[in-house]
């Protein structure tokens, strides 16, 4: 079919062999292409959430799930899609088997390990029926020393927890530490 200088006898351009070889190396299935696109979209969602988180001042005394949900809403991000992509069923409480995905999320949106642990402990406090935060002592938003005050309030509340709950908290904390640093 090809005649001279890459033009076929139908007047079409015939791609040179080297281009065909290079193109073949780039072949992917539509399914793979869609997965890559979704991964890119989720990365963008996380970047938006991180920017939104960075706009906040101080620590907010919410459970991890409630806090992340709030950030997602402010950033106009579909959190369900992000969690699905990370294979995280939920954040309140974090499941030991999916702690790595949860930490990927926390790190990606800019939560420090200390903040993450405090949010997780707040979740336990809430589910155990404790309300450790006196609004007069701990105004919403927490201010500059909010995290310090929150940790102090949690430590006080946790003296009244059942040993079983405390054990679960410590177990989860260890898993969170490990997963968080593994991501570095």
């Amino acid at each position, binding site marked *: 079919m090809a005649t001279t200088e890459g033009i076929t006898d139908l007047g*079409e*351009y015939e791609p040179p062999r080297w281009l065909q*070889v290079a193109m073949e*190396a780039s072949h992917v299935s539509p399914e793979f292409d869609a997965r890559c696109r979704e*991964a*890119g979209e989720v990365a963008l969602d996380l970047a938006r959430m991180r920017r939104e988180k960075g706009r906040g001042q101080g620590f907010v005394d919410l459970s991890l799930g409630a806090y992340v949900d709030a950030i997602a809403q402010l950033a106009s991000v579909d959190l369900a899609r992000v969690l699905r992509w990370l294979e995280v069923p939920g954040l309140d409480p974090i499941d030991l088997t999916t702690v790595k995905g949860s930490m990927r999320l926390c790190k990606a949106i800019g939560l420090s390990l200390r903040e993450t642990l405090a949010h997780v402990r707040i979740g336990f406090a809430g589910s155990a029926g404790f309300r450790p935060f006196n609004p007069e002592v701990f105004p919403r938003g927490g201010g500059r020393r909010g995290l310090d005050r929150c940790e102090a309030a949690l430590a006080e509340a946790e003296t009244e927890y059942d040993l079983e709950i405390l054990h679960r908290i410590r177990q989860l904390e260890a898993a969170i530490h490990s997963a968080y640093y593994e991501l570095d």
Partner: protein
Amino acid sequence: MWWKEHVTENGTRFAVELFPARFREPDPKAFQDFAKIFGPAFRRYFLLRGLDPFEAEDLAVNLVGDIPMRVIDGKFETRTGGSFRAWTLTQMRNTAHDWWRKRHRSPDVIPMREDTAEPGTGTETDVDTEDTDVVVAVREAIASLPKQFREIVELRHLWGEQDYAGVAATLGITSGAARVRHSRAMAQLAEALSTDPRLKRVLYRAQLGA
């Protein structure tokens, strides 16, 4: 367009070097472009290192999501301060290395290809990533085509070999128009890639074979 403004001042700086700044904005298109350009390149590399297609695709997809976040997390600047391409390829090699180490410990060892160095040892050569660079160059060139040309190249070549009738039906044009558009798109692509140093070896081999 960003890629036109920044391609090769001295033959070494490519449009991909702009990704870090674009991720930090964050520019939504940067995430799409990165996925389109590097996803297939990562997959190609992992396949050539001996991973099965499912694992190669899983690792590639994870990297497509992780690398922009690592950049935003400040890992790119602090660790290299240099080429984003080189840093990205190092992340890719390290991922292959981690995969290999995990498998190596298990009883069902799947050996890496023996004709290449163990990834992550620092003994790799450019040959290790030559194919990856080719894919990146091709994908980057396709991304820089006008939309109507880009669409037809993607449909006809990148997602399986669709015939002109299928392409025409997808785009809502006649088969003849699809042929003409494809022909022009390929000519433009060949022109863009023929001077790209990343395709030097491919061009050289083609010359030898001719």
